């Protein structure tokens, strides 16, 4: 396989290209068009794995492995973490808010793609040297020889960049507490002063039948009270409205109770 990838393309590779290429494109499209960020992330991960395979096929063994281990394994997981941390809101609506943005974007994308392809088509890229010679001492060794000689400066600078980025991320996400934490008493006093909800928030759930946290409690007139549900669920729209059901239940209950009482009444008579 090493030799094949090094200098020529085989039918196998062509088959692999067409199958996996399709997968990659579909994955990319899904990344763009999936409503939920989690799904997008998963699709992207898939595309990246496909790309890792292509790297391997092109003789970039080291990169292929790094792509899988670092990119798909670490970076995409970072994405997923952040999605969990942040993306609590409902799935994005794909509805466009800026007038003409979508059409312009599609137009530009289409034009740009066509132009790029035209550019590639124009270029005379029929020469194909293969990597046999470059990889002769092993791909990793070859890369290492270049990195620590020709690209050593770039390498050092990238290292510095990584450190800076790490520190930067910490600075950005870290919040220094600049003042004393307020005591419970102070918080209570503030609530009184601001005239906000004084007592604890009402609990969710309707009778004993629906006491899950995603079911809002009912007000006396039978309407659900959003206050009773956690804010995260509210924002995600994951509230189960059972008011109609509950009212039905109540009616049934009354009826049954009536029947029983009536019967008992009748007996009393």
């Amino acid at each position, binding site marked *: 396989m090493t030799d094949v990838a090094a200098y020529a393309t085989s039918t196998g590779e062509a088959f692999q290209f067409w199958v996996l290429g399709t997968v990659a494109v579909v994955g990319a499209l899904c990344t763009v068009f999936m409503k939920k960020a989690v799904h997008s992330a998963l699709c992207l991960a898939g595309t990246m794995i496909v790309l890792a395979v292509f790297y391997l096929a092109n003789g970039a063994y080291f990169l292929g492995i790094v792509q899988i281990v670092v990119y798909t394994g670490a970076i995409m997981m970072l994405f997923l973490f952040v999605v969990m941390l942040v993306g609590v809101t409902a799935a994005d609506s794909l509805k466009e808010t800026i007038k003409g*943005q979508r059409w312009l*974007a599609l137009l*530009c*994308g289409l*034009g*740009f793609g066509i*132009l*790029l392809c035209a*550019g590639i088509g124009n270029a005379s890229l029929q020469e194909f040297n293969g990597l046999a010679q470059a990889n002769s001492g092993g791909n990793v060794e070859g890369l290492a020889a270049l990195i620590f000689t020709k690209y050593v400066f770039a390498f050092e600078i990238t290292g510095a960049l990584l450190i800076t980025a790490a520190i930067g991320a910490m600075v950005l996400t870290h919040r220094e507490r600049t003042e004393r934490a307020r005591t419970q008493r102070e918080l209570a006093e503030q609530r009184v002063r601001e005239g906000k909800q004084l007592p604890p928030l009402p609990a969710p759930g309707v009778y004993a039948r629906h006491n899950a946290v995603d079911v809002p409690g009912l007000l006396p007139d039978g309407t659900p009270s959003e206050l009773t549900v956690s804010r995260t669920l509210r924002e995600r729209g994951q509230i189960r409205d059972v008011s109609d059901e509950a009212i039905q239940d109540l009616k049934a209950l009354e009826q049954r109770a009536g029947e029983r009482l009536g019967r008992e009444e009748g007996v009393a008579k």
Partner: protein
Amino acid sequence: MSNAENLIALLVAAPLLGAAVLLCGGRRLDAVGHVIGTALSTLSFVIGVVLFADMLGRGADDRAMSQHLFSWIPVEGFQADVAFQLDQLSMTFVLLISGVGSLIHLYSIGYMEHDERRRRFFGYLNLFLAAMLLLVLADNYLLLYVGWEGVGLASYLLIGFWQHKPSAATAAKKAFLVNRVGDIGLSIAIMLMFTTFGTFAFGPVLGAADEAGEGRLTAIGLMLLLAACGKSAQVPLQSWLGDAMEGPTPVSALIHAATMVTAGVYLIVRSGEIFNGAPDAQLVVTVVGAVTLLFGAIVGCAKDDIKKALAGSTMSQIGYMILAAGLGPIGYAFAIMHLVTHGFFKAGLFLGAGSVMHGMNDEVDMRKYGGLRKYMPITFVTFGLGYLAIIGFPGLSGFFSKDKIIEAAFAKGGTEGWILGGVALLGAGITAYYMTRVMIMTFFGEERWRKSAAPAEPGVAPASGEHDEPHPHESPRSMTIPMIVLAFGSVFAGGYFSIGERFVHWLEPVTGYDHGHPPVSALTVTLATMVMLVVGVGIAYVQYGRGPVPVLAPRGSLLTRAARRDLYQDDFNHVVLVRGGEHLTRSLVYVDHTLVDGVVNGTAASMGGLSGRLRKLQNGYARSYAVSMFGGAAILVAATLLMRAV
């Protein structure tokens, strides 16, 4: 002998110093202001007499003196000097101006006694004297122009002396503006001289006049005439003189009768060589003179305001002078002679009128005078002598000078001669008429100023000041002495000048002299003048002397009404120039604001609109900006490909 020249500058400097001291001195000088003013003006007169004596001591052709003070505007090719020239013509004017001026200074001490701004008044009078002397002494046209405008300024200040009266302020402004129109003529004339002769000093210009083309000379002449018209209140620029009577009466006597208004005549006579070379210009001059002569006389007939009647008369008399000046060498000397005699009698008449007003609570309406001869005898006698002089009563000044002009007009020859002579003759008759009218209405007849005498006309509110009946009285001595002196001049000057054509010979070296070819004998002309005189006086007597004069002016004939309104000339000015000008400026203000400014503002507004539209692209959405970046990248790729393809 040579030292005398150095005195010339003093003639101007003395009153100029007076003006500076009086105007900058402040209230400290209030008590002595009039003394300083009069003293300096008299000093100027004395210097004039000294110079005159010096001049008489020399031969006729050696009398011109000059004094070069300093180089005024030295610019490559354009050399203007402050230099004076005193010849016989200037000398005549110097004596007239400083003499009459000093008398009027004296008169003003009494006349302005109760005015709190008397110091200032004398300051202005001195300023006027300085400017007027500068005008007649200048040895080039540009310096003359300085004096020319200087007298205009003094006249402006003095007409508007009682500035709190809007009418006075308006009259002053009008006088200055109309004069400015004339000044255009003078400046263009000077420019023409500069381009024609390369200089504008009297000597070189007049000396080289015959070398220039007739067209040029005619143009210069007409422009000089325009200037003269403005300053001397000749048609069509005469309208300011009547209004100028708003000024204090001594001012009217000095500036608007004796001296300043005659500057136009001086200008034309001084520029004689130019006019001699431009017969067309001369003809226009005589026509202007003749028209004004009649115009002023007719206006004078209709005015009830004693000063305005005299103003009309002044206009008319200057018409005579201009007419004479337009006749060329035949008339120059007589123009100046009439100018001098007119200076005497007209100043006397004005001072008399001032004296009458002084005694009549500043009333100017002759219809409210009458029978004053008993109350102010000196005024009556001096005014009467002036009257006889102006109508040309045989033996008095006016007789000699006016008669000569009429003769000269006939002597021009041809049809023009007959027409001009006829007009001058007719003017003499009208002069007799209106002056008799003034005389009768003021000094004879009923005492209409008495309240009881005023017929009670229903519906006519009595004018203010009519409540207290005036108490006519003779004026103080400081006022009567000048009147007496001027009366002497009015009586004897003409005769003295005419003995052996003395005046003509005195001026001949400067102006030249030519007898012309009178088609009729001098005697005939004199007789005709006498006839006109008698007719004029007679008609006036029949109209005003025999019956009572109504206190309120009757409606009068069409001509009378027109004459009262200055023959509608003012109305014409008002409608065409004032109204038209107002509309023009107003529409221009509008144009400036909407059109000129509008174009610029419109450009700015459209740019603003464009940028307002463009800023909508800047909507703050990073994605929008990204689209444009992406689009830009696409275009770059396209451009690269295209370049390769090409």
